[in-house]
């Protein structure tokens, strides 16, 4: 329910109103007015008019100040400019600022910043006139002259203003550095600059640098950035080679950072393929079984990690995840030693099973016999395929049904930890120690472990997890189990063996995408002609 409210707010404020964490908790919209009064305001004053007289502005201000406790003399100007922030309302905004100047008080810094934002939204629909650009420059100069170092919000507004001009956008680059003093620069600041840079014919390097910086700061670039690049590629009657080089650079960037583009970008790519049929062919595609693209009939690359990466993962794993400065939190030193010796003795395995996770997969409130039976069924599943398994559990599992546990003990290696220890890190340690070929069986998403490994190892860990994780889907009435096997092909942008690029895409752009464990539904198949 509240999502609708927030979405509405986004739409009305031209998308620049930052959604703060506090907004999700409180229904009162910040720096703005509640919806019904807003509707009234918009319909009475703002919808069709280009300018209002001084008295009308006076009455608007008055009604806002009287109506809301949080709106007072200081912030009513910025609030009004926040309300008329659509591209058609530029003249209205300018009119209000002129009115403020005429009354003698003059607009404050926040109001001028918001005016720059309105200029920016107008710039996206039509090019700005000379006079408008001069005014933008004037405002930017005055804001920058007033303070030596600007704060993050003002920097962002000035960046948006400068990007709307034709020649002066490069002044905005040092402002990005200034933003870093107080906080990491926002997605919109980075995106605005990168978009502008891609739009110029010779500033591609600058744009790429910004994109790299952005993804390093874990900010997802907006669709407009990619659209700007693709538009430029479409317009330039470029030689085949430079188009190919640029596109490959884009695809490699997406691959390296595991970015999922949105549908808008995918549509633009399709259009590009139609516009330049000799140089590239783009088709929407689906994935068949075993990761085969239905269009180009090529198999996607396997998701396996290289030996070097695997070695790195194995070295850092124990220290960062299990010990993490205090081994007593997750286990005890003697138990770790005992486990290590056991693994040395009985390695290598084909699969390591997280006993408790498997047993509780179909529900936590089952009788111990059922839990033990489920575990035994999973062990049998692997025994039928002649695989060696290690089962990890806790001491209290000895008290489960003796027959099932004996079956497990006879057909697999069994290691039971203390009832107080975490068994997940043991599972991953045994699997990694066994080598690259070993899988593991657990429904756990391993999010804490991915986080604890750090930013460099996290993508490697996730790829390894995708390649090796079996999970139990469910158990049917007859007792048969349905096992989800790991997906052995890559799920991000990459080049298949035959040279064709495969690009998955999602429906809408999200600023903070979470780790997804599903196969993307929509794919594009790109073939670049040499």
């Amino acid at each position: 329910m509240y999502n609708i409210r927030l979405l509405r707010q986004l739409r009305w404020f031209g998308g620049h109103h930052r959604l703060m964490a506090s907004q999700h908790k409180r229904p009162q919209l910040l720096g703005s007015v509640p919806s019904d009064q807003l509707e009234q305001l918009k319909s009475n004053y703002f919808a069709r008019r280009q300018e209002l007289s001084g008295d009308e502005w006076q009455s608007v201000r008055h009604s806002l100040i009287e109506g809301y406790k949080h709106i007072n003399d200081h912030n009513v100007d910025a609030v009004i400019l926040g309300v008329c922030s659509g591209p058609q309302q530029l003249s209205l905004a300018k009119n209000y600022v002129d009115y403020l100047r005429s009354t003698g008080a003059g607009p404050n810094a926040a109001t001028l910043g918001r005016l720059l934002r309105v200029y920016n939204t107008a710039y996206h629909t039509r090019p700005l006139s000379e006079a408008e650009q001069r005014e933008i420059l004037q405002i930017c100069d005055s804001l920058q002259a007033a303070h030596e170092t600007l704060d993050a919000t003002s920097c962002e507004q000035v960046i948006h203003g400068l990007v709307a001009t034709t020649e002066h956008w490069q002044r905005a680059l040092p402002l990005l550095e200034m933003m870093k003093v107080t906080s990491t620069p926002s997605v919109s600041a980075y995106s605005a600059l990168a978009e502008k840079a891609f739009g110029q014919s010779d500033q591609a390097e600058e744009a790429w640098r910004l994109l790299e910086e952005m993804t390093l700061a874990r900010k997802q670039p907006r669709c407009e950035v990619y659209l700007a690049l693709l538009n430029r590629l479409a317009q330039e009657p470029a030689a085949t080679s430079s188009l190919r080089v640029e596109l490959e650079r884009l695809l490699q960037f997406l691959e390296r950072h595991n970015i999922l583009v949105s549908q808008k970008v995918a549509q633009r790519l399709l259009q590009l393929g139609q516009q330049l049929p000799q140089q590239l062919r783009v088709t929407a595609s689906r994935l068949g079984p075993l990761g085969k693209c239905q269009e180009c009939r090529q198999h996607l690359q396997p998701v396996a990690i290289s030996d070097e990466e695997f070695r790195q993962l194995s070295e850092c794993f124990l220290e960062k995840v299990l010990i993490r400065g205090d081994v007593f939190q997750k286990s005890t030193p003697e138990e770790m030693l005992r486990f290590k010796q056991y693994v040395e003795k009985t390695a290598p395995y084909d699969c390591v099973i997280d006993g408790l996770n498997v047993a509780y997969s179909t529900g936590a409130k089952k009788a111990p016999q059922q839990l033990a039976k489920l575990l035994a069924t999973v062990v049998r599943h692997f025994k039928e395929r002649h695989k060696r398994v290690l089962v990890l559990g806790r001491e209290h599992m000895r008290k489960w049904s003796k027959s099932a546990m004996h079956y497990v003990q006879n057909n697999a290696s069994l290691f039971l930890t203390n009832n107080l220890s975490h068994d997940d890190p043991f599972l991953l340690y045994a699997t990694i120690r066994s080598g690259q070929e070993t899988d593991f069986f657990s429904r756990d998403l391993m999010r804490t472990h991915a986080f604890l490994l750090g930013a460099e190892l996290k993508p490697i860990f996730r790829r390894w997890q995708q390649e090796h994780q079996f999970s139990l889907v469910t158990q049917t009435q007859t007792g048969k189990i349905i096992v989800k096997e790991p997906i052995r092909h890559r799920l991000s942008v990459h080049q298949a063996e035959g040279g064709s690029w495969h690009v998955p895409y999602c429906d809408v752009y999200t600023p903070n995408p979470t780790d997804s464990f599903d196969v993307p539904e929509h794919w594009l198949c790109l073939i670049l002609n040499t």
Partner: protein
Amino acid sequence: MLKTLRPWRLASHMLKGCAIPARRVSDSFKTFDGDNAFAGSEVNSKKFSNPFAQASPAISDGPAETEEDRGKRRKVLQLEADIAHQEGRRVPALEFFQDHHWDHVLSLPTKSARIKYYAFLWQINMKKEAERRKKAQRAEDTERRIADMRKEREENTHIIYGLAHTSMFLRIYDTTINHWQNNRLTRAMQFAPKMVLDCSYDKHMNNREASYAAKQLMLCFAENRLNDEPFDLHYCNAQLEGKCMQNLKRYIPTMLNPEFPMNVHKQCFTELFDKQNLVYLTPHCREDLVTYNPDDIYIVGAMVDTMNNEPLSLAKAKRLGLRMARLPLDRYLQWGSGSGKSLTLNQMINIMLDLKKTGNWDSALKHVPRRKVVDMDTQRRADDSRKALGTRARKLNVRIDHLLDFEEERRHTTAFATPQTLRQRKEGMEFQLDTWAAGKKKKKREN
């Protein structure tokens, strides 16, 4: 962070894969338990050394900011707050901020942390303004009332009644009660069982959690003092420079005075008491506390762990080799889907006090807030009986819910109070004066 060097070294040896001689392993573990093993024979010696006492090294976070940088950063942050205020966000005006506010703002790591702090300051500013407005209003009203009364008195020809604060009762001042309770506390220090609050978790809490912990510690002391048979409460591992203790000092300024009956110790409880008697109460272990043993000294970790999920108290108890226990909450209570099984410190102390007094878990666990506990059975029974009787009663237009309430509560009423039942909808039972006995049939509302 209570980093112990020995197990860490052990584990890093394992990482490097060197063969650890088995003897060395057992040696190191012998010394861990060495104190425990020998403590029994040295019953008379009062000195128990803490094998894990380490001088805490000052951890530097990198090169210190110069004064100039700090001043510059402060200016930028002031500009940030100013602009946010102009935009109408939840930031108070610049005049509201004081030096200690800016010090705190400069210590916050990220922009979102600053935004939340500004929102908090905005809230207290708004509350203050509302208070001011109400006070002005009240002053006006009082003046008007006094003027009216004076006028009335002047016009009155009869005598004027009224007690005007005279009374036949002796006035009992707060300080008298305080002295009486302090006296009880000093007697407790001599004779009563001991209880330890372990305040060593300062590093694991952020500022807000530390202030909550301080308030809970203050409430522990207060509620302990109120009780008829208080514990001898010891605050151990108190880092007097840390946030938690500084806040506690603001609540109780005379905390460290020698004549004030509060035991604050910088040392660890292992140095003050015998390890055999110590039991660490932690929610992360498996053994329930079954009976209360007055010879045991129970330890509660003074930590507010809203952000932190790690079993720190468990790790500490394991490392020190102490016995552990948890309250048998699952056995005696049925938890609702509310706010989880965490209890505040003063609730813990109250539970232990009641347990000591009665030995009965049901009465002790009455201190767990009722909103966390759901009583499924009584609710169902109430609904059934209510439905049956409700229709009849509605026809006669008679109110019966107070009778039904009494019915169920009679089963559960104990010496401590009638338990609060969850709020129940009283449908169709409201007494409507205008339609009462009007002869019109009350239309049932279609749901």
